[in-house]
């Protein structure tokens, strides 16, 4: 490796390690916060304010029923729950499915011409009755305690929005199991970022806001198909804190195919970069605290570090292929089989490799802590193996395309 590549590698490794250490440092620093269930266990709330949950839906006839049923099963007074289903011009039986729930007094159904998710949510906001307003994507399902745990967090009057812990709904194939590890890590990250007031996304599945947030900041606006990210950035710009409740569980359906996952992640990463560009004055701006000084720069550095290390790995892979080809040219296919034997001498013990081992260990730690937060146990499962085997191969594809799209100003599509 050339001197220049070694220097860049070490700088990026240092930054990556710094980010990991900061996350773990914060985790241990706020350990007591992490050990409480929603802050105060399952005792009754001081009061039960009216909460409006908007379900924007477009062509989701298969999952919509389950989504509404999970809302109706929430452990929250029925008369304080206001469910608005907003059909965004679906072309399948979504509206018919939604109308079957109209018999429930909490459920209201609206339909409109297709205009994008944010227009559906904005319509819902305009009809909302609640003191708190949330959104639930029609491919997600809530745990019965999710809402009460989130509302408890609003007992702190400074908190303007609360995000939940998102888990994968019944992971079936290897791809979904891989994603379940990633989502568990997300639970850890969101909790840590929440304690730093540095959450940069209030995700579609069940983020809840004080109504005054919409009254003062307005509704959602079209923002690179990641309107929830834009809204969170706008909140931060106006210094509205976003908290997280790690045990308010929401389950979401994740892509089953590589193509579906690629499109979804491309939209997310592109949306993040495009929104970060729109709100670039927040980056490295101490006025925005940990968000400006850590979360946003860290997310950007992570993307470029991942692309750099992928390029290095591809370079090494090509070199290996070239070596094998040269060996084949020299002596043909191997004529005798030799059992591989382990000799520690040939283990890579360079400075870079040792730092990578340390990083891998800390990633493993984050995975297990995320699992503990999500599932209540640290039992190792095969999905961790799938994550280590496949995530590093798949993720660079959407990271590269997202950067390419931002640089060359190419739009992404929702589906």
């Amino acid at each position, binding site marked *: 490796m050339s001197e220049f590549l070694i220097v860049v590698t070490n700088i990026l490794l240092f930054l990556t390690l710094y980010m990991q250490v900061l996350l773990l440092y914060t985790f241990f620093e706020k350990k007591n916060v992490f050990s409480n269930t929603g802050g105060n266990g399952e005792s009754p709330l001081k009061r039960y304010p009216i909460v409006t949950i908007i379900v924007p839906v477009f062509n989701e006839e298969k999952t919509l029923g389950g989504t509404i049923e999970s809302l109706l099963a929430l452990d929250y007074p029925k008369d304080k729950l206001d469910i608005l289903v907003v059909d965004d011009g679906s072309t399948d039986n979504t509206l018919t499915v939604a109308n079957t729930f109209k018999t429930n007094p909490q459920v209201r159904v609206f339909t409109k011409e297709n205009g994008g998710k944010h227009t559906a949510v904005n319509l819902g906001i305009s009809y909302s009755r609640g003191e708190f307003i949330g959104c639930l994507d029609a491919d997600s399902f809530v745990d019965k305690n999710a809402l009460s745990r989130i509302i408890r967090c609003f007992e702190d009057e400074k908190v303007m929005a609360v995000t939940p812990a998102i888990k994968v709904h019944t992971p079936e194939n290897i791809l979904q199991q891989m994603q379940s590890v990633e989502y568990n890590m997300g639970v850890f990250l969101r909790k840590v970022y929440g304690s730093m007031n540095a959450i940069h996304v209030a995700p579609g599945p069940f983020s809840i806001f004080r109504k005054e947030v919409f009254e003062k900041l307005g509704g959602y606006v079209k923002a690179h198909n990641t309107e929830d990210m834009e809204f969170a950035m706008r909140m931060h710009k106006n210094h509205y804190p976003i908290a997280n409740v790690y045990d308010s569980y929401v389950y979401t359906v994740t892509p089953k195919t590589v193509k579906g996952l690629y499109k979804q992640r491309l939209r997310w990463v592109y949306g993040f970069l495009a929104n970060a560009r729109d709100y670039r004055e927040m980056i490295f701006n*101490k006025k925005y605290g*940990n968000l400006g000084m850590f979360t946003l720069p860290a997310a950007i550095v992570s993307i470029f570090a991942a692309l750099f290390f992928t390029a290095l790995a591809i370079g090494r892979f090509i070199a290996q292929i070239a070596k094998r080809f040269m060996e084949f040219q020299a002596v043909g296919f191997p004529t005798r089989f030799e059992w591989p034997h382990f000799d520690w001498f040939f283990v890579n013990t360079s400075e870079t490799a040792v730092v990578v081992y340390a990083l891998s260990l800390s990633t493993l730690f984050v995975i297990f802590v995320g699992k503990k937060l999500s599932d209540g146990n640290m039992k190792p499962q095969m999905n961790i193996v799938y994550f280590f085997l496949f995530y590093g191969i798949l993720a660079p594809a959407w990271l590269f395309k997202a950067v390419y799209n931002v640089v060359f100003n190419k739009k992404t599509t929702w589906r």
Partner: protein
Amino acid sequence: MHTADWKKYFYVFLVTVAIFLTAFFVSDTLGNKKIQDIQTMQNRVSIDILSSETQFALLSESSCETVGDTSLSKDLDSLAAKLSYAEVSLNSNKEDVLWLKKNYSLLEIKDYVLMKKLSERCKVKPVYLLYFYSNANGSCPDCQKQGVVLTELRKKYPGLRVYSFDYDLDLAALKTLVSLYKIQPELPAIVIHQRAEYGWKSVEDMEKIMPELATLTGTTTETTKEK
């Protein structure tokens, strides 16, 4: 209100620097341990050669039958592989690796000289070759390929002795060997039957040049140090 945890950023910076320094320390310690491993192996090989030399010295007082196995230590194959790996990967121990490489080359030359004397005295015909390569960037594009061929040849004919030398190594004994056989810097170069052959040679080419390979049935071991 947003706040930045400057103190925490600073502490985390210190922790990260500490982890980085620890990684450097661990890497250096393990690198030194690897160097020690090679040294230990070289010491064993050195003792083997000394033993052979002593046997040779005793030849004047006894018959060739009593000399026994004059093969180099079995460590040499793995020593060569480890040296090659160390040369590429132990960047922080370059000086040590270079020293070990010189030591290794000297051991090879010593064995080569001993083997020649022994074959003259005992009228045996060992099958051997000298291989000169270069690791300098761009100076020998075919050296890696030639190394693969010689390794394959060693697997096929375990009795074949391959003495491999880095042409660019600054070692007086090696320079003497180079001038003795008038090796030109047109690498790879292989000395067979006291004559230098230049350019890449396949396994088949080597078998044609060295028909005596077919006679090899012994278990003598030697090494091929690839680039």
